[in-house]
């Protein structure tokens, strides 16, 4: 390092993305059987072999499978012999991507494979997710994930930022857009439905399903060699809020706003955004937190309201945004991932293609 200051950070890009068809159940497959096709697909997109990958990082949760260390079995799908450099986060794969990004920044690797998967079909994901709550004051009451999202939706309605017809429109728009997404689980016109936990109706909630996703990252010239139009990660940041729900203003998402600011999202406008909003009200909150105007295309994939493989849905958002840049459909895109109840943790990435 010179006295001029820190050297410029390496440029890192998403260069390939693949996802499964997201389905209500994949009981015929084990996790690794579900995952392997997407691993092979991202490798094929880049021409890389598993042995060429510098760093591998995955995201998943034992609580979905109901088994300890379930991710170790999935490692069979990446060819972990001879030994590879590998890591795992017990979170959505978007956070695994963050770890891979930092690894590439250090210069220890030039390419990284990031994957994540979730099979919600073996258990009841509404109940499974209660086990991530404060175990002293909250988890003993078993408030399920839809109940907590409903409290947030009511807070948003009370704040005057939305109403039930507006929420229905959010669900309808996402599922209409999902008709162009061959991987989506719920698509097309669906009734707003009955209340699940009021004020949320079935149409305000995500489908429960199984799925997997994978991306490949590459640094600098390596990215240009392997991908015609890399989706450069211009900034990425993640922030968390107090875990106690009663301490937070549920109608707002200051952690998303701060992560976006740190990621540089407000420096120049984006033309599209993939928001990880499993519930309709959360899209309203995120749009406000991210100051996205009506001119920004939000969730052309249909978002998490059309397919919500837990632990993969956030990585899918980054992948979908990157894929639009790869195809030339976007110049500057924002991708968001969330984890925890009521948007507790939020990650924002800003992706750009080279000028054309």
């Amino acid at each position, binding site marked *: 390092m010179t006295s001029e200051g820190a050297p410029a950070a390496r440029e890192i890009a998403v260069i390939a993305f693949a996802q499964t068809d997201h389905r209500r159940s994949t009981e015929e497959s*084990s996790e690794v059987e579900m995952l392997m096709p997407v691993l*092979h697909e991202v490798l094929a997109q880049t021409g890389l072999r598993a042995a060429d990958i510098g760093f591998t990082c995955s995201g998943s949760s034992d609580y979905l499978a109901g088994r300890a260390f379930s991710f170790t*079995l999935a490692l069979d799908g990446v060819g972990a012999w001879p030994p590879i450099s590998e890591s795992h986060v017990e979170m959505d794969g978007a956070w695994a991507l963050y770890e891979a990004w930092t690894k590439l920044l250090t210069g220890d690797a030039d390419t990284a494979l990031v994957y994540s998967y979730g099979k919600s079909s073996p258990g009841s994901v509404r109940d499974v997710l209660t086990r991530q709550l404060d175990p*002293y004051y909250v988890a003993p009451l078993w408030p399920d994930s839809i109940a907590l999202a409903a*409290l947030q939706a009511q807070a948003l309605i009370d704040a005057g930022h939305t109403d039930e017809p507006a929420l229905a429109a959010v669900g309808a728009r996402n599922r209409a857009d999902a008709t162009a997404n061959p991987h989506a689980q719920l698509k097309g016109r669906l009734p707003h439905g009955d209340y699940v936990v009021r004020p949320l109706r079935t149409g305000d909630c995500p489908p429960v399903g199984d799925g997997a996703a994978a991306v490949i990252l590459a640094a600098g010239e390596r990215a240009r060699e392997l991908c015609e139009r890399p989706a450069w990660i211009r900034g990425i940041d993640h922030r968390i809020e107090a875990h106690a729900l*009663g301490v937070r203003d549920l109608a707002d998402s200051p952690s998303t706003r701060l992560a976006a600011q740190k990621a540089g999202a407000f420096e120049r406008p984006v033309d599209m955004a993939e928001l990880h909003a499993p519930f309709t009200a959360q899209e309203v909150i995120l749009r406000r937190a991210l100051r996205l105007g009506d001119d920004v295309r939000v969730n052309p994939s249909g978002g998490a309201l059309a397919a919500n493989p837990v632990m993969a849905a956030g990585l899918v958002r980054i992948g979908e945004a990157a894929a639009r840049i790869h195809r030339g459909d976007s110049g500057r895109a924002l991708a968001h991932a969330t984890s925890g109840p009521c948007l507790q943790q939020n990650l924002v990435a800003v992706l750009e293609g080279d000028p054309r």
Partner: protein
Amino acid sequence: MPEVLQAPLVVEFPFTRSLGPVQSAFLTGLRERVVLGVKTGDGRTLVPPVEYDPVTAEEIRDLVEVAPTGTVTTWAWNHEPRRGQPLGTPFAWVLVRFDGADTALLHALDAPGPDAVRTGMRVRIRWAEERTGAITDIACFEPYDGEPGQPGGHPGEFEDPLTGIVAPARLDYTYSPGRAQTAYIQALSAQRTVGERCPSCRKVYVPPRGACPTCGVATAEQVEVGPRGTVTTFCIVNIKARNLDIEVPYVYAHIALDGADLALHARIGGIPYDQVRMGLRVEPVWTEGARYPDHYRPTGEPDADYETYKELL
């Protein structure tokens, strides 16, 4: 393809958790019908209380009693209560800010229907008849029209304070092992062992998991292996496992079944423990109705040559 196997899988744990001074005071207080908050450096009162200020991360210990009455800050109507939830009849989830508090606590509100609930409505605690020092000592909240309750000025010190709680957790799953392991288990039911061959490196994996961990590709070609095999390595177990009716010492071994490229492990019987050796040829012993071999015993063949199994250690 044969039907994929499924079975119920219940994961159940009694988590034993320690309490710090603040959580201990709060939960002990509930046992004594006292609601305690904690003061932050800037004078706010947090209920439920935490040990560290969520803004400054300063340690906070200054306990203060608040009233058992409060105001709903947001709510959601739950018409189909689920297992473990506070009430078995339809109820509202509520965040309640107690009188004297600046933050809200999550719980249930017993109300006749959603039309009887609104943000800003006044509520009070309905205490559970039997209280143990848990959040469920609050049975629920109920609508309340009266004056704000008066906190008693409790200092937050108790005789016989709680030091821990036991939080039971139970999740119900339907486990399915997937295609490859289903085939393995179904073959075992006919006392056969099947593996899968990697189309790339030609290795045969037992038990098969549907993927070659070396090549990272799917495996599909089924191969019957064994039943005989070779002890590649072993250990002598000298500690008796609870609920396991096997006399110690006994031998646990890696066994390379004939035709397999991965050793599986099993107990060795039918030979004194101190005569088991690398290269010993063994065969499975099945007991009536068992789902896997009870143990492996010597076949009486000459020992295998080290060269034939050295790659499988």
